[in-house]
């Protein structure tokens, strides 16, 4: 319970920062003030300024939008496609459809999201949308496998048998009886994929395959900071901490949620 509250609080802090950044940031991140560049943290600039004299605190607030948006949409893609596929595969266990879906999943697993991003970027050029697609595609088999595995055991339950006797079709049973019972698992996995998405987005924009300037993103900020690290370490420190704490918050929230939603597992700790 403690880890859930702490994790949610940490995540909420960054989500709030991202939301507030739409209406207010301490400084305007589009204004360059070269005279003010690479200033260490002060009372005016809590996290200092970058090589263009932009306020790093404000940039982290705006960068949170990119990170969170990319990761959330990627989870939605993964769930939106993966869950129905997993439900369908479980409903027709052992059929050709099941086989095709599972082999397709295996195939996607052979393409880490970085490679998908490389393929997409080579053709369409880099953008945050590419990052979303790359991470989203990688999320599909994660949710498909999880859903199929959980659904398979539910299909043997008596209440599913009762529903079949009552004349419900496979689709209706999947939606009305299977889905609600795997929802908890999906929520926990969703939190984990959310945090992995934040990490993946940061890595992709760090190597230039994600959000492009002038859109601030944490990974880009770190890429810019790399050559300045000896001169102004603070430029590299704060975006990294932002990623670390967001991911940590989500992971703790995920662990906490699992404990709350699935009391059977609580004994484990």
């Amino acid at each position, binding site marked *: 319970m403690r880890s859930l509250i702490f994790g949610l609080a940490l995540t909420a802090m960054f989500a709030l920062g991202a939301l507030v950044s739409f209406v207010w940031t301490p400084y305007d991140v589009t204004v360059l003030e070269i005279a003010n560049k690479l200033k260490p943290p002060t009372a005016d600039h809590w996290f200092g300024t970058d090589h263009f004299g932009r306020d790093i605190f404000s940039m982290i607030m705006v960068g949170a939008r990119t990170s969170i948006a990319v990761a959330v949409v990627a989870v939605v893609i993964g769930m939106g496609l993966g869950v129905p596929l997993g439900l369908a595969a479980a409903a027709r266990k052992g059929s050709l459809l099941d086989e095709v879906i599972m082999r397709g999943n295996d195939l996607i697993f*052979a393409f*880490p999201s970085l490679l998908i991003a490389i393929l997409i970027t*080579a053709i369409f050029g880099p953008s945050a949308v590419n990052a979303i697609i790359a991470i989203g595609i990688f999320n599909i088999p994660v949710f498909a496998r999880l859903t199929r595995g959980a659904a398979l055991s539910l299909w043997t339950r008596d209440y599913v048998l009762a529903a079949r006797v009552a004349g419900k079709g496979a689709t209706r049973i999947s939606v009305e009886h299977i889905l609600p019972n795997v929802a908890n698992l999906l929520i926990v996995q969703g939190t984990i994929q959310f945090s992995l998405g934040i990490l993946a987005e940061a*890595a992709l924009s760090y190597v230039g395959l994600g959000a492009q300037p002038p859109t601030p993103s944490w990974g880009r900020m770190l890429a810019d900071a790399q050559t300045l690290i000896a001169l102004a370490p603070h430029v590299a420190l704060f975006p*990294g901490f932002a990623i670390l704490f967001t*991911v*940590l918050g989500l992971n703790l929230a995920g662990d906490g949620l699992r404990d709350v939603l699935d009391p059977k597992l609580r004994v484990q700790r």
Partner: protein
Amino acid sequence: MLRYAIKRVGSLAISLIVASLVIFACIEVIPGDPASFMLGINAQPDTVAALREELGLNASLGARYLSWVTGMLSGDFGTSYTYRSPVAEIIGDRLWISLPLALIALGLTVLIAFPVGILAATKRGSWADMSVMGATQLGIAIPNFWFAMLMVLLFAINLRWFSAGGFPGWENPLAALKALTLPAIALALPQASILARVMRSALLDTLSEDYIRTCRAKGLTQRQALWRHALRNAMIPVLTIIGLQFSFLLAGAIIIENVFYLPGLGRLVFQAISQRDLIMVESVVFLLVFAVIMVNFAVDLAYAWVDPRLRGRA
């Protein structure tokens, strides 16, 4: 065991063929005409025609796919448009950095995760377990390229124990290994954190099994029960994760190379993207996917070795 292996080889072949089709479609079909794509919008029509001829783009799609695949089978990946030399040679040179990096990182991951995971499981609930769980929670959340930058700041810039980047070449193996040390640690830390947690929970599961109690009852010490029985049974989930991790290590190596300015596959592929050298991108991506598929295949075989029950199924 043999039947199991044959079945696995069959599905391995199908995976490789489908993966190659996907990559071929992405690189050579989606952009329309790769030649004009590579030369950009300002290219003269006769230059485009010449490149089309050079790349063999006038043949049908099927013929091009076949010649790409058969070329790769004989070690011919085509000629790089920007480097004007065989892709296989260039990749071969770069592979000598990325592959050792990923392997060293994998070795470190296992070396850290096994003892730590076993310690946490056997001393469950103790302060050692708590600190392992806390530290691994941090290790999982830290972006490895940022951790790499922090290590550069500490060990290269402030302490001057290591150089901040670059690669001296394998002529001097010690210097080469030294250049790969920080990158490998940066890659290994998050993966070791994940693996240590998997090791701990897998071991906790097996240690609570009835047969372990039986072992203890017939007079084995806790230590003997652990090493002879529990560890082997805990290996299935651990092996799965190690297999998955290798693909993350290879992909991660590409990113970490950027932090340390290592001239490996990562820098090659990012340059190729900005130079629109599609042939190079296609080959590097296929090579990495190939590596991932082969590792998963090896893990499947390893399962059967660890757990004889799996040999019957396929």
